[in-house]
């Protein structure tokens, strides 16, 4: 497994609509190349509300920040979690060849790409996005790292 990019600057939001948070650019993940992208996420206390994270490949949101996917619980407490996106670079007839696994406190979800195909030849940018359920709480994300695996 080879590290191919990362971003260790935390980004936070109190936005009720999806915004970009952490970006890893200048990637070159070709079709069928296995990859793993991982990041930490957290929410603050302040209201009984959850936060949702999602993911964008190049400029396309492929996992919407939706409840029950990369989500925390809604208890009024600080929570943190970890998300892993496993995939293979876009493959003909397999445009959704990726998935996420996320866990935070008492929530854990495995999620397919629910928003759009990866209709591209090469992945150059992986972007985490997110939103909060109540502007009294903050979503933070940090330490997004991307790895590729060999296939021979």
């Amino acid at each position: 497994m080879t590290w191919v990019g990362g971003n260790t600057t935390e980004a936070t939001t109190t936005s009720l609509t999806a915004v970009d948070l952490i970006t890893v650019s200048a990637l070159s993940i070709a079709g069928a190349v296995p990859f793993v992208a991982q990041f930490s996420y957290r929410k603050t206390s302040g209201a009984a509300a959850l936060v949702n994270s999602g993911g964008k490949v190049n400029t396309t949101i492929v996992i919407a920040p939706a409840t029950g996917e990369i989500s925390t619980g809604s208890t009024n407490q600080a929570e943190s979690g970890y998300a892993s996106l496993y995939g293979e670079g876009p493959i003909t007839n397999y445009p959704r060849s990726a998935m996420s696994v996320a866990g935070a406190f008492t929530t854990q979800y495995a999620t397919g790409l629910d928003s759009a195909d990866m209709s591209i030849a090469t992945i150059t940018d992986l972007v985490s996005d997110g939103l909060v359920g109540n502007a009294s709480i903050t979503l933070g994300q940090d330490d997004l790292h991307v790895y590729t695996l060999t296939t021979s």
Partner: protein
Amino acid sequence: MTWVGGNTTEVTTTSTTVVDLIAVSSLSIGASIPFLVILVFRTTAGAIADAFLGFKINTTVVMSAAVGGISNTGANQAESGQVIFNGRGTADPYLRVGGAIYGMGGGTTQIGLQIGPDNANFPTAPLTDIVSLGVVSNAAISLGSDEMHVYTQATS
């Protein structure tokens, strides 16, 4: 993590009984050696119907291609997704040391789940063959699997 085998020839089926799909053979995964399997899978549109994917190790079905396992959403749409199957070579008395996670999507729907080995104990190591299995509930749709790779992880 070391790549130890792969298969990049797609296999598809419209069978309503479980059949072998893509396989990686000639492995030699010894007792207690951690392994990771990745593959992609897809279903075509054609009917509101389910498709299920499972796994066989050597000749033993360890994860059924059945309800409650790895599946599409059932919607009449093209879908594709990713499966990760990890575990380790069998070491008595740890006989079902593995599990799968998957996610599949199409349109604006998705499904994802974690699956344990529901059908049988892993065969005695070494693990030589890892085979994906598949079935569809309606022959009007096709289930395909491709780009399967197997890795082992060091233990020291």
